[in-house]
């Protein structure tokens, strides 16, 4: 397609535009790239005054943790091959009849992919690299300082996997419950034009604006004393809700509900009403029409909303830090313990390594679901 003469841009404008783009990309990525680089270096390098030293890590290298040119080339090759293999062969394999099968095959493929990558990266590469390093002389000498010791101390010595486990319980619970409850409500609201539905939506909008600490101020006394409050109903097994991941799930689902129903409603509205009507003519009840006719075409919307529920639960700091015990936290509140403790620079680099560990899954998430995230962000805006 040729661009009309008058719309064509002069080179100076093009240059300025691309320079600004470059500036924005650096601004957006630099803090994240930088903590990634710092997390692999010994503390002296990580907090070095010279940016070049932070990237190259001379001190880490002299401590005996380094990669040679051969290691780097092999590592990059394995990563590149895995990405290629993943997108070229594995993703098409994930096709299947029905949604459950598709989700299942996705899960199997993701696991298999992760396994292959781990074997390739941590077993085969060192195995191949060792003799190569010894035989290739200057190419085999370590040039880039890099150490995983901070990750080891975060994950193994400080048992960060327990926090990961809590985070996984909370996020899984929040996503499943809020989608189940939210799709039902979103469908009901999208298909009912009544004033009651309008008011429910408006009240949900007000609820969305509430600061979370306002709500937690309401739960906290009730949750701490819940054993006594619930005793008349549940007898002596009445649980203390404070410190229970289940309580956090319930709270996050409810906090998330207003947003979920607004988003799902806007997705349901984009599905023509004719579809339910023809199903109803064929003798379906409302619920059957919803389950067998609407839901199959609704999956993109559900996945998008699920992503945002996941983000809310995964990124939550306030609710978990107030409603869970300090010894039994999810990942994000747990990291505060690290940087509040930062007495030595080693502690600081460990905090950075923990931060990178928390960010890595989000990075993958954006990589895989970029399109869904963009469509979810715009869904709210376009339809109000």
């Amino acid at each position: 397609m040729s661009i009309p003469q008058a719309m064509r841009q002069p080179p100076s404008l093009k240059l300025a535009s691309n320079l600004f783009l470059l500036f924005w990309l650096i601004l957006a990525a630099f803090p994240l790239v930088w903590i990634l680089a710092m997390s692999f270096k010994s503390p002296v390098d990580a907090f070095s005054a010279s940016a070049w030293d932070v990237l190259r890590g001379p001190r880490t290298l002299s401590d005996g943790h380094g990669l040679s040119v051969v290691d780097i080339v092999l590592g990059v090759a394995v990563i590149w091959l895995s990405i290629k293999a993943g997108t070229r062969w594995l993703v098409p394999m994930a096709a299947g009849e029905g949604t459950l099968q598709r989700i299942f095959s996705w899960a199997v493929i993701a696991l298999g992919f992760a396994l292959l990558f781990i074997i390739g990266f941590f077993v085969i590469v060192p195995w191949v690299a060792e003799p190569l390093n010894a035989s290739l002389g200057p190419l085999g000498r370590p040039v880039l300082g890099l150490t995983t010791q901070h990750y080891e101390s975060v994950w193994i010595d400080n048992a960060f996997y327990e926090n990961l486990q809590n985070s996984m319980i909370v996020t899984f619970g929040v996503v499943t419950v809020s989608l189940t409850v939210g799709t039902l409500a979103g469908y009901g609201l999208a298909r009912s034009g009544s004033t009651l539905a309008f008011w429910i939506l408006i009240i949900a909008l007000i609820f969305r604006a509430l600061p979370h600490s306002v709500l937690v101020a309401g739960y906290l006394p009730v949750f701490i004393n819940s054993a006594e409050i619930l005793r008349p109903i549940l007898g002596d097994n009445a649980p203390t809700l404070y410190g229970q991941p289940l309580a956090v799930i319930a709270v996050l689902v409810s906090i998330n509900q207003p947003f979920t129903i607004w988003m799902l409603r806007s997705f349901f509205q984009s599905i023509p009403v004719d579809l339910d009507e023809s199903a109803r003519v064929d003798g379906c009840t409302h619920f059957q029409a919803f389950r067998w006719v609407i839901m199959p075409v609704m999956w993109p919307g559900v996945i998008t909303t699920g992503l945002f529920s996941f983000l809310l639960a995964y990124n939550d700091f306030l609710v978990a830090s107030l409603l869970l015990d300090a010894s039994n936290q999810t990942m994000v509140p747990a990291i505060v313990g690290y940087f509040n403790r930062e007495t030595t620079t080693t502690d600081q680099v460990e905090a950075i390594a923990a931060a990178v560990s928390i960010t890595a899954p989000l990075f993958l998430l954006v990589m895989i679901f970029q399109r869904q995230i963009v469509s979810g962000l715009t869904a709210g805006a376009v339809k109000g």
Partner: protein
Amino acid sequence: MKFKTFAMFVGPSILLMLVFIAFPLVTVLVNSFQVTQPIFTTQTVETCTPGFVTQTCTTSVKTVPVLDEAGNTVTTTRWVGLSSYANVLGGDRLTRALSNWDIGAVLRIDFWKALRFTLTFTLITLPFVLALGLAVAVVVNNAARSIKGPVIFVSLLPFIITPVIGALSIRWLFYGDGIVTIWLEALFSTDLAVAANGWAVEFLMMFYRVWHVAPFAFVIFYAGLQTVNQDTLESAVIDGASRWERLRYVVIPHLMPLIVFITLIHLMDAYRAFEEVIGFSSQSHRITLQYLTYDFLQPDDAGNRQISSASASAMLTMIGVVILLAAPLRRTWRDHRGG
């Protein structure tokens, strides 16, 4: 759809919202008017120490909490009216400061400090978010098709990342001998102590917020730019409009509903800013309204939480939300009745 079917679809969601949003609001309102405290009694305790000839005995009066049979402290709940609110607002300190016309003293009271910061934070970041978002959207729209995907990927990162971690990643660039601080020091050949300077911390918190929200504005504006009417643009070209005029008079009016939308979302979210305080550890310099409530809810050294003050500050925070939402809600209601 019949009411019964509607109720069955919407029921679970409504129930959750009633139990976990509406009900807590009521308890917060009630709690803000009452104080729950352990009951204390005074006991006379005689302690004796062996002396040289006779025992030395001293009697002292001690305050101890009353315990029930199970060994728990007995608490009492008193109706205190507005005194928790007065406490949060500063009480005597506030009246004294107001009678002296001393604004500085007012702003040293936690609540007013938090209010001042939250409002300036919300209002100052807003134009930057809109401007940066729009600029990036225009530039990405202008970029070659092949690089758009990766560019959008990188641009989304600041928005998707966990807010506390995002704030931390910027904190580590500046605090102490962070790399950017070192660069700035070399550039201006001065000594900078970012973490010790309240205004520097405030600037960093705003910078973080713009960095974090601009991608959201960008994605929305970018979607909006795809639907700009090309015919209008072409006729503007024929009429001799410059690029700037086309942006000003064609594109921006087209994006106006989106600008309103982003403004509304940003006001709601920035008003309840919280993660910045944690990420930048700015408690001693700058706090937000939501952090104030959070702080009251944290157990103190004796393990007590100031539920009543927390509830009062939560209710005061709510007033701001109501003011914020009044205008857009009135408009929605008019639209609903009209449409």
